[in-house]
């Protein structure tokens, strides 16, 4: 109690002077937020929480990701049917990837290439070599593919299809689908744990998160949520992030305006953090001290202090923030 109280007091003081050192000095990373309706990327400083710049990009930017060398930001410009490459040094668009129609979310092979892009309108996963920007493969998946997860060893890519309600396991060598796991309705996001043992898949309409054993390809736990005073149909899980040490998972619950905190060992929901309206995607800073959450309806980003499980700041960004990515340095 006393420790908690003093910590709170310390936090308040720190917040008052405009810095957050809740868990030691925070490194300054660059945070990128795609604004789906603003057709822009907001660039933030993770230390000062200041908006550094707003970059105009293509239409309906949704999924975003930094390349492994941190030099380029990949932006799914869904309505322009392309993935744009932004040079993070000059903050200019320097190229496009042949993503195929309506790219929504993407992910990278651990080696840095290829990039896997879900084409929501076309029931495809497009695989693109980042070095020569050539399409390596197009894998036919279920209706409305969205979430893309890549296993830490790079051997499996998983695509979730929103209308088919499956997680498709695809071999990254052969591009063959090896397994299809039925999950709850409208699966949105797929996140492998760092040890590669589990795959977490959020189901927006079913209101659940399925934890799949990557060995057996069976669901080992379907996590459900209940928030006092919130009607169950508003609990719509979307973004999922699991800490590197495998201890905690965070799930954005959409119009429930909460981020669920889950014990990733026992799968018990431990807390619900109140954030902005229609919370969508999540991204950790590399030191995992902060978690950024996009709030699509309130047009802001909530900053969560991970060790203390507190929302410490909300930062106004562009219209309908959707995706979020954080630099390595």
């Amino acid at each position, binding site marked *: 109690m006393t420790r908690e109280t003093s910590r709170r007091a310390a936090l308040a003081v720190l917040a008052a002077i405009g810095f957050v050192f809740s868990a030691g000095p925070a490194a300054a990373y660059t945070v990128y937020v795609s604004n789906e309706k603003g057709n822009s990327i907001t660039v933030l400083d993770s230390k000062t929480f200041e908006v550094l710049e707003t970059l105009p990009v293509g239409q309906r930017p949704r999924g975003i990701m930094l390349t492994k060398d941190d030099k380029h930001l990949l932006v799914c410009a869904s309505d322009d049917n392309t993935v744009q490459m932004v040079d993070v040094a000059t903050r200019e668009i320097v190229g496009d990837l042949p993503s195929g129609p*309506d790219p929504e979310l993407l992910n990278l092979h651990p080696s840095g290439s290829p990039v896997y892009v879900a084409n*929501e*309108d076309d*029931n*495809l996963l497009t695989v693109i070599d980042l070095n020569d920007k050539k*399409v*390596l*493969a*197009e*894998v*036919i998946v*279920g*209706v*409305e593919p969205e979430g893309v997860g890549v296993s830490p060893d790079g051997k499996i890519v998983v695509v979730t*299809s*929103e*209308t*088919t*309600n*499956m997680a*498709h396991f695809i071999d990254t060598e*052969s*591009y*063959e*689908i*090896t*397994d*299809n*796991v*039925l999950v*709850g*309705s*409208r699966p949105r996001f797929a996140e492998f744990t760092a040890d590669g043992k589990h795959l977490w898949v959020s189901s*927006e*309409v*079913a*209101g659940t998160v399925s934890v799949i054993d990557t060995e057996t*390809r069976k669901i080992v736990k379907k996590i459900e949520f209940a928030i006092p005073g919130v*009607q169950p*149909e*508003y609990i*719509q899980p979307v973004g999922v992030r699991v800490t590197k040490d495998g201890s905690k998972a965070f799930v954005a619950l959409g*119009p429930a305006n909460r981020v669920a905190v889950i014990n990733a060992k026992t799968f018990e929901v431990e807390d619900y953090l109140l954030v902005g309206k229609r919370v969508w995607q999540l991204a950790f800073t590399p030191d995992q001290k902060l978690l950024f959450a996009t709030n699509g309806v309130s047009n802001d980003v909530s900053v969560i202090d991970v060790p203390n499980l507190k929302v410490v700041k909300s930062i106004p960004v562009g219209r309908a923030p959707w995706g979020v990515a954080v630099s390595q340095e």
Partner: protein
Amino acid sequence: MQARKCDDRPGPARRLRFQYIRKVRFGIWPVIMALLLALAPRPSLAAEGQGGAGAPGPDAITTIPIGYLKQEVKRPIPLSRLNTEPDDLGMAGAAIALKDNNTTGLFTKQKFALDVERVPPGGDAVQALKTLVASGHRFILVDAPADVLLRLSDAVKDQDVLLFNVSATDVNLRQKDCRANVLHTAPDRAMLADALAQYLVWKKWPRWLVIKGVFPEDLAYLDALRRAAKRFGGTIVEEREYEETPGARRSDTGHQQIQTQMPVLTQGAPSYDVVVMADEKEVFGPYLPYRTWDPRPVAGTAGLKAASWHPAHEQWGATQMQNRFQRFAKRFMLPLDYQAWVAVRAIGEGASRIGSGDFGRINAYLRGDAFDLAAFKGQKVTFRPWDGQLRQPIIIAGAELPVSTSPQEGFLHERSELDTLGIDQPESECKFQ
């Protein structure tokens, strides 16, 4: 697709099998697919020989035929050309859902087929239904007036057949005339009127001048409006009747007459906020906007309408649905298309979840707590166990854009806010038979 001999079956009704039509419409699509398959290094459909979910045997493919029975009805030409009914209305929605089901089916080893029986006006719908049932169809979408639907339901009462009412909005089908073998994906008049009323009350336009037509459908909608006013705090300040019988849509003097008639029709009313039309056949309703005596908005069967779908609805992933549909049907998606889409997707969802084409298990699954369907409405849609009605958010829209979606914030319900729309369990008169 598995070949089934049905195109050459004699009978009064025309039968179409949609996958053949699809091939024609999608002329270029198989070519593109073949190209993709050829270009990708080692692509796969992964349907064969893999441990797909719910597969009954290593190589067995389950075929689930779905029927679509359309009782054609003679209708007057609508006042607006924009409201001309497409020939494939509803059927195109079912066909696109079939495609969705079959994409999923690639992974679950299930194949869905869609066979359409079109019964001409005055034709024998019961015979057409029996033909569908005799050829193995257990799940059948029905686009027919309420009396025909009831005859169809009774004709297959003791068989393993589930009908989906995709078009009839009659409240009695969910009340005293409810049937155990019918699920309704069409919202009824009570749901539509409640959805509109909630929006008008939320907007603080609670005083309504009702202009009603003379047809039974108009009076049925009026009943729903009266009920909605009472439930949500609206007031009908006056009901006026428009007695003009439908005439020729095009006439040289039509314009000028209407320009003077409509103001007079709405003249001298008690203070009101909005005109609410009860003119389901659209005999005169579309004439009212911008012609009322007082400057007031128009809602109901004209102007601001409540419907299950709108061609410009793009929230909650609907953009993808609209794109898919437009590419396929070469036109906008309309409410009846959506209602048919939901029915076919519900069947597909049931089959994929239980991993079988078994009629009894799918039928039970659709009605149970485990069933939910993602249907581009921002929350799951389900069937009410007490009357078989689909629970669904209702879109409130003008001609060009949606304005809102009901239920509105603040209309609370102990179980689901969706149950504030239409006939709730405590008031249900439905005793399944």
